[in-house]
């Protein structure tokens, strides 16, 4: 048995050597072959595929909720001005409105840089009661305007697409309206309505070329004309730079 096994081993040595020679030749000719020799994982470097931007955004100072009006920019009387230095737009804010992270009763005085691409501007909502779900507050009469970054090639696959063109002064925007059921999903009827508006940006965030500003203004479906007018005024006074 031992002799037989030794014989098989000698054959195997020759075979392995021959295969190795042929294999090296094939590799030399192909030069780029990456055929798998054995199933196994490809090294994946945590954080190495794309640089996590949350840490990068942290290098920007918090933005004050109220900033001086730039030269040539106007807001309605008694409204304040907010400058978003990450997304490069300014916004006029009605009196009594403010930004919130939903953690405290009062509007934020300063906006952490990490939030600047996903803001909530609330109206008729202060003092805010932490723990309240925003959709519940909206159904009770609050207004929640979400200000998000919309990548150049992004769409909403499961609800209305802002495609209706509207000219607001010199600003040309796309908009649509969507109703939501009690489960918060798109529905034919519902107590909650969102006006979605896409506003073009001149510069946009540095890490998202071609991005636009997406405003999602959520109100009661039965919102008053005055409330709706205020929403459109906020959109109209967006100042992209």
């Amino acid at each position, binding site marked *: 048995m031992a002799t037989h096994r030794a014989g098989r081993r000698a054959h195997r040595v020759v075979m392995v050597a021959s295969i190795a020679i042929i294999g090296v030749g094939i590799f030399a000719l192909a030069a780029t072959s990456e055929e798998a020799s054995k199933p196994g994982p490809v*090294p994946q470097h945590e954080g190495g595929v794309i640089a996590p931007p949350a840490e990068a955004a942290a290098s920007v100072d918090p933005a004050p909720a109220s900033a001086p009006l730039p030269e040539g920019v106007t807001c309605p009387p008694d409204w304040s001005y907010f400058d978003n230095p990450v997304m490069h737009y300014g916004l006029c804010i009605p009196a009594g409105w403010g930004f919130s992270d939903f953690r405290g009763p009062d509007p934020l005085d300063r906006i952490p840089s990490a939030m600047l691409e996903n803001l909530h501007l609330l109206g008729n909502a202060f003092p805010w009661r932490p723990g309240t779900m925003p959709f519940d507050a909206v159904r009770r009469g609050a207004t929640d305007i979400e200000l998000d970054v919309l990548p150049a090639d992004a769409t909403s696959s499961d609800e209305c697409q802002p495609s209706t063109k509207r000219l607001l002064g010199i600003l040309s925007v796309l908009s649509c309206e969507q109703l939501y059921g009690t489960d918060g999903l798109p529905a034919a009827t519902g107590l909650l309505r969102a006006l979605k508006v896409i506003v073009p940006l001149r510069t946009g965030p540095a890490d998202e070329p071609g991005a636009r500003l997406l405003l999602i203004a959520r109100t009661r479906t039965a919102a008053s004309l005055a409330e709706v007018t205020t929403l459109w005024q906020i959109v109209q006074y967006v100042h992209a730079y």
Partner: protein
Amino acid sequence: MADRAVRSRVLRFALPALLVAAFILTSTPAAEAHNSWTGGYRKWPWRGSDDRTLTTLPGECPHCPGVETPSASKAIDVAMNYETVYAVSPGTISTFSTMGGKAGTYLQVKDADGSYITYEHLSKALVKSGAVLAGQPIAVSGCSGNCDVAHLHFQRQDGPTFYANALSLTPISGHGGSGDPLTHSSYTSDNAGIGYYHSGTFSTAIQNAYKSSGGYKTIGVTADIGVGWSPCRYESGISSWWRYGCAPRSGIAGSVQTFYDGSTNLERAIMIEDGASTAYVVYRGILAAYTDPYNGHDWVYWIGYPTGSRYSWNGWLRQNFRYGYVLFDQWGCVEWLYIGSTWTAENHYCDE
């Protein structure tokens, strides 16, 4: 054994010489061969070593029945304040949406196992389409949609819509039994894929093994060592995938986690038998044995889990296992596998 040693020395000198000759003849450097399996799973979608609290557990409101859509009934909310979200599994992005409704901005990845994993309330997505790898940064958490504080909503489902059926997260969290990390306690993800929770016996053993090997550069596959390198699952339950607790055969239950060594970036594995308090590093040369079938099963079925670390023995390297041992000749790139004390098979792999 003496014959084998002689043959090993033949291999030690003859094979390298032939390889060098072949190399000179071709005069062209050989391309490096890579493994191409693109799988790999993580435990949680946040950075390993960070403490995170699960603020809403499966079945709890607002994910509770009657309030939430079916797909979210087994979801979790994780306290993540505008932080990088990592894909837990390889797959393809099936949906990127800036929804005005409850989910806000969300990403959905179709997992290699056919399920859909959804990451909601994002402030922004870093990728919007195409394939993703486990551990790839895919988004930044936030508070879009119906969100009362910045967090990550994380769920699995059996279809792409919000009305699909919810799938359990226990294949991701662990065994789903006592001590499962799906609790409100602050949880540190080792993202090692093994362990009941971060201070549990399994996880501690795994962490110690990582430390003993000099740390890891990348986590690879947590595998069922039953057949090939498929994601981990019980053999008896095809529909219930258990990525982090494998029981290929009654009596040899345990887990394996592949990784890449922190200093050399070479493939290694950590193996631990169920009930054991120590996990052992298995080097590539010996690890290779486990992916080779023998009598219809991979080798672990026959030889069991390691009972010690690799050590020098009579000019070879040896590692003992529950039902046998493996000798490895690192110069000849040969492994000899023994069941009990009987030589049963051999493989040819170098230790890299």
